[in-house]
Structures are given as C-alpha cells and as structure tokens.
C-alpha cells in the first residue's frame, strides 16, 4: 500500500520537518511500521557545493575503512560525522548512519560530461555492490535522506527531523512486502540529486532493470523503486530529456491516444515510446521524484494507485491522501486528482 507526501516551495522558503512527520503519520493506515523516511533539499547550506554522502554502517571497523579508502581514492572528504540520532521505543540503532561531505577529483573521470556526478555514481554502485556492511542511501548536494525501519513518527524522532530545514521534502510511509525491516528498503531512494518515493509495484521491473544495467547502473536494493531513481538520472542527466519528456517516456500515452495527437506531437511521442520502450514502467504506481529545482508526480497509465495534488501560494503538494496535504496546510483550497500518466511538475523560481 504505502503513503507518500511531497512538498516544494517555489520560492525556496524553508520548512522544518515536523509538518512532514505529522502529515506522514496521518497515513499510518497505509503503512505497517516497518519503514519510513524523509528526503529534504537545502539541509546542508554550509556544504552546498559538496556531495553529502549518507552511509549505513553495520559497524565502524571494516566497512567504514573500506568506504573511506574508496572515497579518498576518488576525491577528498572535507568533513564527516555520525548523523545524530536518538533511539526510540521502536527503533534501535542497528545501523550507524554516517555522513560525508565529499569533493570528487574531477580529472579522474574525464570521459564524462558530468565527471563529478559520474564519480559519485560509481562510488555509490561500488559500495552497495561490493562492500559488506555499508550502504550508501543518499548522495546528492545539499540534500539528505533520513530513513529507517519504524513508524513515520518514530523515524522522524530518531533523526529529530524538526532540526532540518528544507524547501523541498519527500516522505514515505512503507507497507513492505519484499524486504520488511531492512533499513535500505525504506524510501526515499536517492541517487545524486534524484530522490524517489513510490507507492505500488513495478511489474516491468525485470525489463527496466535489464535496461538500466546495460548503462552501468547496478540494482542492489532488492526492491523495484531504486530503478526509478536510476532511470531519471539516465534520461534527464545523461540523455538530457526534460522532466516532462522523461515522465512521458516512463508512463507514455496509449497508442490509441498517440494516434489522435497532432502530427508533430505524435511523431515525438512515438519516437519516445520506440526509443525508451524498455524504460517504460508498468504496473500500479504513484511516484514523486525530486531534484534540487523541481518535484514531479505521476501515476501509472491506468491509475491503479491514488495521487492527489494540492496547490497553495508558492507550494505544490503531491500525496496519496488529501488528508495528508491538509495536515500540513489547513487552509488549502486547490486540491485535485491528475489524469493517469499526466506529470504534475512543480519548479522553483527563486
């Protein structure tokens, strides 16, 4: 089932995490107390030019040494610390969350158009595939993912989420089926600047995984959602599609609709479907994807999962439930449900 909530402030005004905690908790009906998480953009202004790499360590001996060796090989750790946590009734610190502020050595990845990103992507894939007892779960600039296994309010209090201020938040209340209790399985999933929360199950996962792996991404989280983050990274960063076009590639219109489009749009949409057929996502889903200057929400082509949009002044909300939006903003009036597959995009203008 799962519940999602996202909010973006177009003027980049900051919100602390407490409202998100309350909003996510209102959807506890949609979760099972085995996973929740928050992604916040703008939380590390002092290190905004550095990659904030969040790692779960099983212990601080072998895995930590190995991760730090890898980081030092590819760049410089400018600062690192344990992410402060406070144990809750429901959450014991079975993994130790650590964060690094990392500057890659650009010259080591000359063949890429975005060498720094490519280095960090490589490190994330390498750690998650090869280093036992370490898992990178957040790797963007000036953003952080905070997640664990527990109810939304427990996870929020574990990290004291109210201490973080961001202009864009995504949060997720999990009802796991694949990997209950595993912290890495909680959402949001993040790669570089992309964060994803997802309600549903991607029936095309096998196709999507084979496709994305042929571009050098490794799916190591045992769950379908991570593939969305990688697809967004591929389509938008590496293939330079706009967000709208990327969403149209992932949840394209039916052929019947395409045939009714004006010629130019028809040609473009057909080209997207042909080229990115293996990236297309099938099955029931509602997804919100964030990047530093935008948030996109979309559902599967026949809308088998709920998706509600709210707009008020500078804020755009994406959620599974209207109640979750109203918990954050009680005076909101503009709430609607988008058509299946249609992307709803909120962008920062400041």
């Amino acid at each position: 089932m799962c519940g999602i909530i996202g909010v973006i402030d177009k003027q980049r005004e900051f919100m602390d995490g407490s409202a998100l905690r309350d909003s996510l908790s209102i959807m506890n009906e949609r979760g099972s107390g085995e996973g929740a998480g928050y992604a916040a953009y703008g939380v590390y202004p002092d290190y905004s030019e550095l990659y904030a790499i969040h790692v779960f360590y099983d212990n601080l001996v072998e895995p930590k040494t190995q991760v730090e060796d890898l980081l030092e090989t590819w760049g410089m750790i400018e600062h690192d610390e344990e992410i402060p946590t406070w144990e809750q009734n429901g959450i014991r610190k079975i993994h130790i969350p650590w964060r690094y502020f990392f500057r890659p050595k650009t010259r080591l990845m000359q063949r890429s158009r975005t060498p720094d990103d490519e280095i960090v992507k490589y490190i994330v894939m390498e750690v998650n595939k090869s280093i036992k007892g370490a898992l990178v779960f957040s790797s963007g600039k000036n953003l952080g993912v905070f997640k664990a296994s527990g109810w939304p309010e427990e996870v929020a209090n574990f990290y004291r989420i109210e201490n973080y201020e961001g202009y864009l938040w995504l949060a997720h209340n999990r009802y796991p089926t694949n990997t209950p209790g595993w912290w890495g399985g909680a959402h949001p999933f993040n790669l570089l600047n992309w964060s994803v929360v997802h309600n549903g199950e991607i029936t095309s996962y096998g196709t999507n995984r084979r496709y994305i792996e042929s571009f050098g991404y490794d799916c190591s989280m045992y769950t379908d959602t991570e593939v969305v983050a990688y697809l967004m990274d591929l389509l938008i960063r590496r293939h330079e599609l706009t967000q709208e076009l990327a969403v149209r590639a992932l949840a394209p219109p039916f052929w019947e609709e395409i045939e009714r489009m004006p010629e130019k749009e028809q040609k473009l949409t057909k080209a997207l479907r042909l080229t990115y057929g293996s990236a297309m996502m099938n099955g029931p889903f509602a997804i919100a994807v964030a990047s530093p200057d935008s948030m996109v929400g979309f559902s599967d082509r026949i809308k088998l999962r709920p998706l509600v949009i709210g707009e008020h002044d500078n804020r755009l909300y994406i959620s599974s439930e209207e109640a979750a939006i109203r918990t954050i903003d009680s005076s909101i009036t503009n709430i609607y449900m988008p058509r299946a597959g249609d992307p709803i995009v909120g962008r920062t203008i400041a």
Partner: protein
Amino acid sequence: MIIGSRPTKFQVAIDNDQCMLCERCIENCSYGVFRRDNEKILINSRNCVACHRCISQCPRDAIIIKERPCDYRSHPVWTAQVKENIFKQAESGKILLGGMGNAAPYPIIFDQLVLDACQITNPSIDPLREPMELRTYIGKKPKKLEFVKNATGDMDLVTEIAPNLKVETPIMIGHMSYGAISLNAQLSLARAVSEVGTFMGTGEGGLHKALHPYQNNMIVQIASGRFGVDVNYLERGAAIEIKIGQGAKPGIGGHLPGEKVCTDVSCTRMIPEGSDAISPAPHHDIYSIEDLKQLVLSLKEATEWNKPVFVKVAAVHNVAAIAAGIARSGADAVVIDGFRGGTGAAPTIFRDHVGIPIETAVAAVDAKLRKQGIRNEVSIIASGGIRQSADVAKVICLGADAVYIGTAALVAMGCRVCGTCYRGLCTWGIATQRPDLVARLNPDEASQNVKNLIDAWTLELAEFMGAAGINSIESLRGNRDRLRGYMLDQSMLDVLDVKTIGA
C-alpha cells in the same frame, strides 16, 4: 534383398461394417494406400504416412491408423529409428531426408519455464475492460533522442527514426517459399496476415503476382540462390530479409527438385522450368561480416532507405556474437531460428543434431546485445518451435521482440506434421505443386483458420499480460523476472538468467 521387409510404420484398417464404399479415401490419399477391389477397399499400409487426410474425409469414421503395430525387440540404444536409418542407408548409400522440424526427443525448455501472475500486492488487469497493447515496432531504434529548443521554448525532435514495421501482434509468419508450399497456402497466409495487421515472409521463392495485393504485409527474402530477386521484388516488400541460415539445417544449402519447378514456379523464381533450384550453403558474396554489411547497405540503397532489412541466422553455438556482428552491420532486425525450426526437406541427421534451441539462443543474444549497449540497434525475432501462445509469452520475456511461426500456421490449415513435405504429395494441398492437390486448399477457409489462430493466441497473450499486471508488450520484453525455471539445472538457469521456482 539381404535386409528384406521391415515392419510397417503405420497400420491402416477399415471397419467394413462402417465403410459405405464411397471411395473418398481412395480419392484423397496421394500416397496410394487405398484401392477398390469389388465390394471392398484394399489397403497397402506400407505407403501410409499418417497424414490423416483419409480420416478427415471419411463420413463414417471407418478408418483407423495405428503407429508401429509391430515392435522390434526393444533396446535403449539400438532403437527402431536407429536400425531403420541404418537399413535405409545400407541400401541406398545416401543422406536421409526428412520434412518438418527436429524430431529427436530433446527436453523442451519452454515446458520447463512457467509464467507469473499478480496476487494482491498489485492488481491483475482485465483485458476486456482495460486497454492492452500488443503492438510492436520491428526495426532499429536510436539509443537516445536529440532535441533542440525552438524559439517558443518547446523541444523539437531532431532524431529521425529509421523505418520500422508496425505489427499489431508480436506473432508473424516465417518464410515458406512458393515451391516449398503451394500458391494457395501462401495466399491463405497472406490474407490472414493482412487482415490481422502482421507480416509473413515470402521465403526464397520470389513473389508470385497473385500475392501482390498483400505485398504491404510481406517480407521478401534474399537467400543464397537469389531466386526471384530483382529491384521490383525488393520494392514490393514491406521489409527485406537476408537469409543466412535456417534452424532445420544450419550450415547447409537447399534443394528444390526440378519436378517441383512447374511453369509458375519457374516464372516466380526466375529459373528454367524443370531445373533443380539449388541454394548454395553460403552466400557466395558473403564470406565475412563486412560482406554482410555491404549487402545490407546495398539493399537499403536500392530501396532508397525506406525498408527495414532483417538478417536471419540459425541458432548455433556462437549465435550471440554473430547477432552482435549483425547488429553492427546496419541491419534492422535479427531473426534467430532455433533447432526446432521446420523445413520442407532437410537431412534428418542435420535436422536432429545441429544447432541449439531458440530459448537459449534468444536469452544469449539479448544478454550480449545489452552488454554491448546495442540492443536498440536491432529487433530480435524468434522462430523455430513456437507451438502456442505461452511459448510466445515466454520467448518475449527472454528478450524477443516478436516471433515467426511456421509449422503452427500450417497445422492451422490442416497439416498433421507427417514430415513428408519433401515428397511433394501433400494431401492437404500445402506442401505440393500438384494442381489437383493444391485445389484442395481453399484460401477463403484456410486464411480464416490462420487468422483465427493468430487472433486466439493474441487474446491469450493479452490475458497472460493482464494477469502479470502489464498492459504493454514493451514491459514483457526481456522481463525475465516474470519467468521461473521448473526443474532446470543451474547452468541452464544461468544462461536463461531466470530464477528457479520458489525463488
């Protein structure tokens, strides 16, 4: 005379209480099993091939055919088949011929793969209520799209997509030439594919003018004999296929006996009447992958880059690397013909012992192309042993874009897979050029049967997809997560990249 008579393969009997002496069996049997003697039908069982034509026409169900009525002494090594082959070769000193596909009892991998369905965590989709997309585009796709921002700030597409075939269902009909099969058989198939919105191959037999009305749904073939090929032929086809090899007889050529080259066949193939039509083993202008590239590009140039060009190869051990070479040749699709692929005539020893099954070939090719980042360069068409819609679904999960069926389409027209195509006496009017036999196949009826078959499989495919929570064929393609291996060994699971049941 040393070897003498062998037990008959089939024993035919007539229930004389039922028989009304209508003589339909005599008329219908082209192999000379039946004749009339006063008030009785006499039988020569030795001539019977079990084509069942007599049974299908008998109004009284009076005919009974039994297989192997007389046993040899059983032996696990020196089976009846082995012994009889030796008898035949001891007498003739020749290569033995057979029709249809591989008849050796290898395990069928398709039957050890099972499909998936949704329960609770995601809903299955009802194809009767929701759209279900089986349309497939066969041809080259770009790796990525290029756009430019125009004056109004919108994105304009710069990339031009190469011509693709639009196929309404991923089931096409493979290449069976005029010569190997009758004109009525080709006409029936052609009408069926044009009604369904799919395609069929001409085979290496040219394109008879009676098929011109259906040319938009026909893929014209260029094989090593170059029969029937001129620019007019190329231009008529919706796509062009270069045949390098076929699953029933990888690595060897073809031979249409002169007796089958009647006036009409001679005109269509552009060869003298009554002459043997011999297709050499290799193309004598393709001795390397570079040569293939030249032919692909020449064909494109000749047709002004309007037609996709396919390359068909037999599934052999190194098929993945071969397909990767083809993908780099400029070809738009690679057709892989597994070792169960049918044929009009092949040396049985080849048919049964050379090549690999289509399931493993598709899995290996798809994996290799993805690894090299060139999967979008070509579509993969799987053929050879596709018997039912489940096979179509499974091979698409393994990575194929579409399938060719051959034998299944013939069976839809009456073929009983008797394996005697090479004798040209097909009682069903399919694999023959004898006018009286050809006339038995009515294209109005047979085309409907073939269309029904494709329609029925398409419906079943839609149900499989809906049950798996998938509403577009793209999401089934290469989706090996939706397959599980049932009692396959680990090395096979690794090749297929499929998990075992329960995992």
